[in-house]
């Protein structure tokens, strides 16, 4: 696994862990318990991070010549990811 994939998986897991609701006392915000509000804010931060990460990861389109010309199934003579 390359370092960028490791970084992304790690970052995703850390951000998702932050959405976990923790006891924050009996306070309420907008009528909701504080732990629920903070969890939703963390979910919003996670969503924003994923939205920002989509930009560099999906990148730009390749030149037309490098895209598949046929519509059939994949060619069996090259296996991306296979050794």
């Amino acid at each position: 696994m390359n370092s960028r994939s490791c970084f992304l998986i790690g970052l995703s897991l850390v951000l998702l862990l932050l959405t976990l609701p923790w006891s924050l006392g009996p306070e309420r915000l907008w009528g909701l318990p504080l732990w629920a509000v903070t969890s939703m804010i963390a979910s919003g931060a996670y969503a924003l991070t994923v939205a920002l990460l989509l930009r560099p990861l999906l990148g730009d389109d390749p030149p037309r010549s490098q895209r598949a010309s046929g519509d059939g199934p994949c060619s069996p003579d090259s296996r991306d990811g296979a050794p």
Partner: protein
Amino acid sequence: MTIVDPTGLLVIAGYLLSLLVIAFWSRRARRERTLADFYLGGRSLGPLVLFLTLYATQYSGLTLIGFAGRAYRSGFTFLVSVTFGCSIIGGYLLLAPRLRALSERHGFITVGDFIHHRYRSLPLTITTTVLFVFALAAYVLSNLKAAGYVLHAASGGRISAAEGIVGLSLLIVLYETLGGLRAVAWTDVLQGSILAVGCGLAFFTITSHFDFVSSMALLAEQRPDFFEPPAPREQATWLSTIALVMFGVSIYPHAIQRIYAAHDRSALRRSLQLMLLMPFLTTLPMILVGYMGAAHFPDLSPQESEQVVFHVLGQLGHVVPGVHPLIVLLVCALIAAIMSTVDSALLAIASLVTEDLYAKLRPGSAQGRLTHLGQAFSWALMALMAALAIHLPQTLWRITELKLEVLIQLAPGVFLGLHVAHVREKDVLRGLAAGLLSTGALMLSAAQGLVADKPLGLHAGLIGALINLSAVWLSARSRPAPQTSAVAG
């Protein structure tokens, strides 16, 4: 559910007929008789259509009424559904960039094309395809059953559940075979728009009548347990739910087909970014409506609470003018949500069977013949699904709830296949066997009362997936280290 009057039923009928008009329109846009044109809309979906088809497909009827009902019963811990809605896009983040690049280079049509290309193993391709078909068929079945129930309840019994199932099945299979993914995506534009508008209007109508903060104060008096922070076991279930949905839902074959069907990467990126908003704009409002229902109507039975949105709106209808059209719109939205989920799953099953089973076993079949075969298969499958939705014994319905537990076992093959070079087909098959067996054993043991329903708060499917991953890792480690470690581009 509140009964819709004959005028409302005519509006619903008009909406359903408009789907056929869209399907005919999409058929005229067909460019060629190929699998890519039929199952991927000619790889031409722009950002808005792609976003709305992803949205309408991913947000089933559950979102509209099921989640509100669950929130009514479960309390604030069900806010996890907003988080797992975001985590699905987090799952796409891990697979879409690489899968999209590979599909551009190799012309993938189904998820099975990637599996076959990556592992070059017919047994693995067939095994994963059969499991995907099982999960999707379970999805279709449960949604068809819900559709029949909705039409029966909304019409006040004028339409039986069986008639509703048969009628909607016929309509779905008709527009799907007319235009393939293009018809499905274009109808999803209408269905997704109705769903979003219906949810938004329901939320604003209810919050404009009941003050939210005072409703929550009332709820705190009636259900103080809702306000308790989750115990460690519930926290484990929170994380387990997110993991199950993130890795299970993001590999739905119809979702992966939409990654292939995007016109370009920019369209895919924008549609996924828009999808990140929807848990906050659709799921969260519906859940908050569930809490407001719990505050003002605390005595609903579990079955009544399933329809809490309609219950609250029905009560409002007595005091607020103009609510009835909103109820009709919501029924349309509910039917739309169910239909858009079923049509996408049906199309994905047909593509999996033709492209990953028939075409792999009979290479060289003409594209036109495969397309016709897929269309014929859709009709046969829909007839079977409709019959099962009407007649399946209640005891067997539990099987349809296993789809995510099965789907997550396929996730290692897809995610590791994209990112880890030295994983081979045998590793994935061993992991799959270990994951499915351990999940099955855990669920059977739980049914017999030998272990807890969720040991340590974790879903059986997630525990199975962890065993699956461990088996893949052990199997891959048992071989000598490969010469190359990077995933080829």
